[in-house]
């Protein structure tokens, strides 16, 4: 029994190439609302790339040189675009009831990604090394201390926050994004709700739609 062959066959069975990169989708997918997911993904890639450049040159560079400042600005606006698209994507998926028909885990991984992304952005704001990061640190410390986390997760410790921001949390978000996207590809997007079936009530008022 070859474990390698078993794993390969299982992966190929679950995610054959035509499902990973489909060239056909339901006609209703031709809508701007389905672009929000890919826009979120693309802005995340831009975040990682601009963040990698910032990490490579260090804090003095992004504060002290025009080029560093520009890359810092790219990183700053990427996070704004990332969250703008991600929040719209999340709301859209909520209003579409995207967890239906066996897609609960796709929703769960997406929501957990959102929470992990907030943590990543928060540690990023703490790593800016300007007045805003000082202020967020001293304000946020009270909340962390109030629930007993401040001793371990010390917002005033730049080294620890920077480590979380540039390594631990981005890897977590990237892993969750991969799992989320694979789940979308594995199951496909959810179908629209069936048209409402309404029946007149004795009083002439219409009953609630069937879910």
């Amino acid at each position, binding site marked *: 029994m070859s474990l390698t062959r078993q794993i390969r066959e299982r992966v190929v069975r679950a995610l054959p190439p035509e499902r990973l990169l489909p060239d056909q989708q339901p006609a209703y997918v031709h809508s701007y609302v389905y672009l929000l997911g890919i826009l979120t993904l693309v802005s995340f890639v831009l975040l990682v790339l601009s963040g990698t450049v910032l990490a490579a040159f260090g804090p003095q560079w992004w504060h002290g040189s025009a080029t560093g400042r520009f890359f810092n600005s790219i990183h700053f606006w990427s996070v704004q675009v990332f969250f703008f698209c991600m929040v719209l994507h999340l709301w859209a998926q909520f209003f579409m009831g995207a967890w239906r028909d066996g897609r609960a885990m796709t929703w769960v991984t997406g929501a957990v990604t959102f929470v992990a992304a*907030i943590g990543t952005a928060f540690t990023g704001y703490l790593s800016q090394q300007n007045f805003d990061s000082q202020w967020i640190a001293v304000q946020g410390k009270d909340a962390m201390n109030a629930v007993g986390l401040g001793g371990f997760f010390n917002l005033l410790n730049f080294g620890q926050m920077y480590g979380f921001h540039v390594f631990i949390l981005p890897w977590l978000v990237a892993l969750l994004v991969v799992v989320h996207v694979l789940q979308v590809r594995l199951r*496909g997007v959810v179908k629209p709700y069936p048209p409402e079936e309404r029946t007149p009530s004795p009083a002439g008022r219409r009953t609630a739609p069937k879910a």
Partner: protein
Amino acid sequence: MSLRPEEYYRGVRMAPYDLVKEALVASGAVIVAVLVLAAVFSSPDVPPLTIRRVAGETPLVFLQVALGDLDGGGDIASYGPPYNHGTGSVQYIGPVSLQKAMGVQTPIDTARDFVIDPLHELARYDDRLARALAAFEAAPHLQQDWEKAYRGALTKALIRGHAVSVPAGDYGPVGTLMANLLSMGQSGALDGFLLTSSHFYQTDYTRPLLFIQGDPMHSEAAATHLLGTQWGMMNETGSYPGQAWLWLYTFWYQIPPYSTSPNGDAYVWLTMAALTLMLILVPFIPGLNRLPRYLGLYKLIWRDHYYDQRMMHSQ
């Protein structure tokens, strides 16, 4: 258990879809948008507040903060875990305090760490200061009286530029200690001393930030509209967007009981933990998982699909 897409979409009208082209177009759009925003608006970068600046620009505030650290009346001196065994900022959820349960993990003795130890460093080169320090440490029973007298003297202090003159009083060596600490603050030496410990390399700003976290930082934050009552952490300096995604977290701090309770932070955490769990578990929560059906916004999102279906049925 979900069906495979091939089975799930049986009977659904399919159309050609170029996923890679879509990703490339999306990449182009995002890159252009971000580059334009970065080039036109740059990014916020208000310089950090330093102890040197506080001591130089607001020497009286510096002395009040330092005296609070020395006499134990300051916020951090009586804060509680994880810094010390005080009770001033200990929060509870019902009868339970997770803060107390975790104990002191980052020990801070404000009198020793923020005042006495830095002055001992300076006293190596200043005999008068060394004598004042020795007199202070040799008379623990008089320290409170001296500190109280000096606090009173500070209310009548005269400020001339960077210098603070206090009227003569019975505050023993405290005046000498405070004057020297102010000099140390104004020279920038205190910034360095609080950052440095036994290591050469430093990345932990806990002590210098705790020194200025009270009035000095609040004054600066009020001027830049960053106070908790001004939606604090989700704002950014200048006119830049901040962490707008923290709006719900910040919202709770604006309303009672969160805004008025001494346990407000713990309650906000508890509330947000419950709401976050609800968000993650939406598919499994009866009622909530059917809410989109009742809200009906899906009709707007899939309006073309429903229109096509109506047309098909009417033919």
